[in-house]
């Protein structure tokens, strides 16, 4: 019937062409084919990959000096192996042990005081009705995040100066004797944590504000219909709704417990406050970069990195369980 004609079967030559092209190609040929097509992509990727290899992976190779008696002249590969000697030295070193203790203590205090601050701030922002007031306040509280540690330290040093600083001036109004805060070990941690909150609480609230913005508005509407007040809504709706975010941020913080912002520590501490201020990275900095004990310092760094890695991976696994999406 006519259908045959309408389907217009292919001619012999056309079928022959097809046979010629349908021969399956081998994996090598396929790879060449692929590269010919997509070489530009690989070219774009290459510089970045080389960068990572040279600046982040090559130092990992250099980590082997943690197990070597490293000398500059013999180089990394040429220095003799000494096994775990440096680690034995480390764990017999009171200062290093103190640095670990300080790191964990400062992080824990930071968690206790620094972690709730942005959450409370975000919850408060959520209750502010006047949009321009809210906006202005947000603009201001985000600002310190963008200020360098050196300046932050400069401000702290100036403000806490025993003679000229505003803090002692105000204390003077109440008849208190001046205190030289930055030389007192017991004052280092409060100042450090307080500075951290001042600098980061505002910026940290962005994540929670976004979580709050994601809460379904009809929840509030039905709460209004049910006669709930704002305080009740905050506890019964807002906080439960952002709990997953809070949990994830908490897990991240715990994962980063070995990361105290040591740049600020270096800028604020002094030998008199090492007792409470010296953290692992500042210790490594002094041992390695200032005293030239590279191998011992690298061993401390390796220890630090492994602990941090385990913590971060654990945190990542946990947060995956809570959120189903992993954090980077």
């Amino acid at each position, binding site marked *: 019937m006519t259908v045959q004609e309408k389907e217009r079967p292919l001619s012999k030559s056309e079928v022959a062409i097809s046979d010629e092209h349908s021969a399956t190609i081998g994996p090598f040929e396929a790879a060449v084919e692929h590269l010919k097509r997509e070489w530009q992509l690989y070219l774009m990727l290459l510089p970045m990959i080389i960068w990572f290899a040279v600046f982040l992976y090559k130092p990992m190779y250099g980590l082997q000096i943690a197990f070597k008696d490293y000398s500059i002249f013999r180089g990394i590969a040429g220095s003799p192996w000494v096994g775990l000697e440096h680690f034995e030295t480390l764990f017999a070193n009171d200062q290093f042990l103190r640095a670990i203790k300080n790191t964990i203590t400062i992080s824990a205090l930071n968690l206790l005081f620094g972690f709730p601050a942005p959450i409370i701030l975000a919850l408060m*922002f959520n209750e502010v009705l006047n949009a321009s007031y809210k906006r202005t306040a947000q603009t201001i509280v985000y600002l310190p995040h963008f200020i360098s540690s050196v300046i932050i330290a400069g401000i702290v040093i100036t403000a806490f100066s025993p003679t000229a600083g505003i803090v002692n001036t105000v204390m003077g109004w109440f008849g208190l004797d001046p205190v030289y805060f930055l030389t007192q070990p017991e004052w280092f941690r409060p100042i450090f944590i307080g500075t951290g909150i001042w600098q980061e609480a505002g910026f940290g609230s962005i994540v929670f504000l976004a979580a709050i913005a994601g809460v379904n508005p009809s929840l509030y509407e039905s709460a209004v219909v049910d006669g709930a007040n704002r305080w009740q809504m905050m506890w019964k709706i807002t906080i439960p709704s952002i709990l997953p975010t809070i949990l994830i941020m908490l897990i991240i913080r715990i994962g980063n417990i070995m990361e105290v912002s040591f740049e600020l520590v270096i800028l604020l501490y002094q030998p008199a406050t090492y007792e409470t201020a010296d953290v692992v990275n500042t210790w490594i900095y002094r041992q390695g970069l200032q005293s030239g004990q590279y191998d011992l310092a690298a061993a401390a760094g390796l220890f630090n990195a492994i602990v941090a890695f385990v913590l971060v991976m654990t945190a990542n696994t946990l947060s995956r369980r809570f959120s189903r999406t992993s954090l980077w």
Partner: protein
Amino acid sequence: MMNWNLYSRGDKFFAIMVSILIGMFTVATLYPFIYIAAVSFSSGFAAQAGKVVLTPIDATLEAYGYILKDPQFWISYRNTFIYTIGGTVMSLAFIIPGAYALSRPQLKGRRFFNLFIAFTMWFNAGLIPFFLNMRDLNLLDSMFGIILAFAVNAFNVILLRNFFEAIPKSFEEAARMDGANDFQVLWKVFVPLSKPAIATITLFCIVSRWNGFFWAMVLLQSEDKIPLQVFLRHTISNLSDDDEFAIVQTAAGFSAETVTAAIIVCSIVPVLIVYPFIQKYFEKGILLGGVKE
């Protein structure tokens, strides 16, 4: 959702209390800056005696005169601009093409490359091997070394990659049908479409470069290469225990405190100028980054 007229008395009281608390926190955030500015414009004597609280006492520009006359201040200011601009350009030059390649499903070994990059966020060799590596590469005391060695970080790469991945595939395909190659697809389509993400990354780069201190201090020895932050640090620590300076300043109208404050003001001003422009990006930016592998 929220309507003042529908608020009960209790709710109104609550909202007002919260607004006051927010106001207090905002003032507390702002106060140190005001205080430092006030100190910088005060006389050295007033500052040293702790008289400055809110406004300049015995207003004077002598502290500024002192630092603006210091050639090292200008050299380091210039260097900071070089590091910031050079470093940001360098970062974008690595990250934009790299993130684009990583975002393309046709890239073979994509999982591996992604892991290769993400791994560096979880495991870091640390200060010492990084420093020794820089020495082996002959990049100590090198401006180019600073610009190159901190050009890329995994977080920014992943942020941009995620953004590129979210662009519908048909944009790439339409451009391809129109005859564009990968470079053209990236430059003429993806980059214009990703302005918010690129602005965010640019912002992060600029901020971290402008503020960069630790490695500049460790890696740079020559005075003519140090950035503003290192200069600032030197000045702060020198001023506070420099006897010679103590003698000079008693005669002059400035003190260690006012000079420190003046330098702080000088290095914050550019941040304050740029800040309003960048603000609209970083809120989105930090939310863009964190999610998904």
